[in-house]
């Protein structure tokens, strides 16, 4: 079946099998490998991406359902030269170790910008409940998201629309 969608700002067409998952489309067809698969029960959030500005577990969405949507993955938010504030915060606060949960965590963190205003520690913890990490004990992830969100706020960035996702002068 034919679908059209935007991935990281780029319009794409695919002919997909009905049972293909969005995460499989992203990894095997768009060939972006940053989005990971960590479970088979919709529990881990390693596959978290933004669909039209909202975080979603891409293993729980059929590629078909994403027809007409704007998908943003970890590869679409910043570059090494120009990190997104949330990436910068993970870097600064040592919010990652093995890195497997990281792309999903960063996307989940960014999406909180549209959902919570000035969240405190426990709101952040609840906000990323769907994203599992085995390495960090979440401590530095929480620190990172807190500081990433306040930086995003200062720059008036949000996750809900693509145009507001990036810093204004981003060389994307």
């Amino acid at each position, binding site marked *: 079946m034919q679908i059209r969608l935007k991935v990281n700002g780029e319009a794409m067409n695919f002919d997909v099998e009905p049972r293909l998952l969005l995460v499989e489309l992203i990894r095997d067809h768009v060939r972006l490998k940053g989005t990971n698969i960590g479970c088979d029960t919709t529990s881990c959030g390693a596959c978290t991406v933004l669909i039209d500005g909202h975080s979603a577990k891409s293993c729980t969405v059929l590629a078909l359902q994403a027809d007409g949507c704007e998908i943003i993955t970890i590869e679409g938010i910043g570059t090494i030269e120009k990190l997104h504030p949330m990436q910068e915060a993970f870097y600064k606060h040592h919010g990652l170790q093995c890195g497997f949960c990281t792309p999903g965590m960063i996307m989940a963190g960014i999406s909180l910008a549209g959902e919570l205003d000035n969240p405190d520690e426990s709101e952040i913890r609840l906000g990323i409940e769907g994203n599992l990490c085995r*390495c960090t004990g979440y401590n530095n992830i929480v620190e990172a998201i807190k500081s990433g969100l306040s930086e995003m706020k200062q720059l008036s960035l949000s996750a809900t629309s693509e145009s507001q996702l990036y810093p204004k002068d981003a060389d994307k």
Partner: protein
Amino acid sequence: MSLDFTDLEVGRGEEKLVGSPYRRLEDPIFITKGATYVGDLEFDDIAHISFVRSPVASANLKNVDVSEALGQPGVIAAFTAKDIEIPAIINWINKVIERPFLAKDKLRFVGEAVAMVIGETKAFAEDACEFVNIDYDLTTPIIDPRQSANNEVSLFEGCTSNIVASIEGGQVAQIGEVRIEAEFVNQRLAPCPMEGRAVVATIDGEMLTVYISNQAPHSAKRSIIRYLSIDEGNLRVITPDVGGGFGSKIGTYPEEILVPYIARKLNRTCRWVETRSESMVSLGHGRGQIAKVTLGGDRDGKIRSYCLSVIQDCGAYPEIGANMPALTRWMTSGCYDIDSVDFNSISVLTNTNPTVAYRGAGRPEAAYAIERAVDMFATEIGMDKAEVRFKNFIDPKNFPYQTKVGSTYDCGNYEESLRRVLKLANYDELLVDKENRIKDKSDLLLGIGISSYVEITHGFPAKEFGSVELISGGKLSVKVGTLSHGQGHRSAISMIVRDVTGVDPCNIDFYQGDTELIESGVGTFGSRSMQSGGVACKRAADMLVTKAMEFLSNHLDVDLDKVEFSWHEGGQFSVGSMCLSWSDLYRLAKNEGKVLKASENYESSSPTFPFGAHLAVVEVDVETGKVHLRDMFAIDDAGNILNPLLAKGQIHGGLAQGISQALYEEFIYDQDGNPLTATFADYGFPTAAEFPQFRDELMQTPTSVNELGVKGIGESGTIGATPAVVNAVMDALSVYGISHIDMPLSPEKVFSAIKIAKRSK
């Protein structure tokens, strides 16, 4: 790759990097594109492997029929034990026990690989697995290791006993006015690295290349050589980025040998990436120990004797788990100076997934036993739980200290770490709060739990490889035989090499996890990497500087003592008024056809013994049995700290796993051996909402075992946290006279213990 580090607060200028919170070199890629795991690698014309696994814990296997599966779309091949022409794995502990690569004659645990289907896509392979028919006759499984130890039924033909390993002991006299006896269970845990096992095998003529998610690539290579009878020169093993291991990826699993075997058979690139559901039942489990303790002491608080008796559940085949009691034994008496100490153990087979090393590996079990026993002793004699510890600690003046079971602790100051954690937590105020709540008959009881731990790292000192080579542009190429699976070795080792040579970490090419590039290696486990590979790289860097100075002295025909080196400004060699950089040295050496390179196979003389004190504060809701961990304080001492950012990261991850064992996690089999917690939806994997922010500080008592003064820090958090949390819950419940509940301390268990206690009052 060039990175812009201009925004770093540290790492520039003329200060040493070691000891600073230098940001990780791994991260820029990890946070923008993601790391590259085995499952991310792309190959042309790849075939996908899917395993069919035993649905039952114990059965006689009559037939495995793959003919229907072979007729399914997209199926390339399917194999059963009959088709595998490699001899079974002879067990390293008991030579009578053989483990076939695919189950043959017997099914021994739910999850054991029985057949494999190879498909053009993963989906084709998985779908076709449904069409493999397994014909078997059920036999009675043994799930409880205590029952297995009775030897009423023998699990392996030709094996007279289900006990595959044992340590004799336990004969010491029990002395003291008070005697504490208790049984503690360290429940079975699933290690759950976020990336499961994954293997790709590619063939190029005679050459076989295997990509594997593993903690020890050189030993994986040895295993593949052994079973595939391949020439050493024709095999390259590569571990790209590894998404966690926690001990479960030290060994090489049968499935991981089968992937290259099948690739060679089909002459085609093959990949297996396990699903979470298969990982839960067949990636080795951790813990699984039942301990009996007997502690004797006097009413003045002095502990006089201590004996630990352990039953270790090995699962269906004895793997590393069978040897965990040896590590437990080393740490039997913990931080305490006790006159009479003894240990004994048996390791027994059951019809469950084999046990392996899991973060802490044998030491959490030891710390849990003694820290719980000491708390029970304190309660029995009515003494403060901190005070009883102060009364029994090994005197800091008595290091190195030899314990009664023969471990030699390198250094320690247990009093200081406990004092510091009590201060950090405001212990005295907590005690008042706790008493007030009891007086007020509050439904929310406060519990304070202390644990003082000491553990062993680099327990089996083995040589580790490190090399440093000067390459074009004055850059360095650093190679090491250890392997980061999340710890950040590239950063830590680059910092060490930078401080010797002056070369900026951004100009250091770092290599690990490739048997072609790195001539030898042991790998990463037992918190060994910095005290083995780190020291090897430090020595290699020192030697490179010396070699470079010698080269210069020859080249310029001046005495060696006229050549000077300073690590400042990127590394400067000077001879009189002449100043040369690493890049100049490279050019000069190249013109003479010389390579400046140094390597070291460093063998540490002995293990090291990190220690610390943790304090957990819990609130227990007596109406629901729910335990809320309010605060977790930790003082940890792993000697000199190379990078506090990374060290604390290790502590945090360890604390979370330790806390989670105390409160949430347990891998459960029913009495028929069916796993009840085989997915992330059922297993108690903790989320961020389950933890407080940790309040941790590092203490530094350098070891003299190695020149960096470092001990391991990868597992300490786990070891100290579990007893601290359980002690805290028991402290809260002491008003009911409850002395022990086995982990995990779920609301159901706590609630029913309270109910029973109330009824009997």
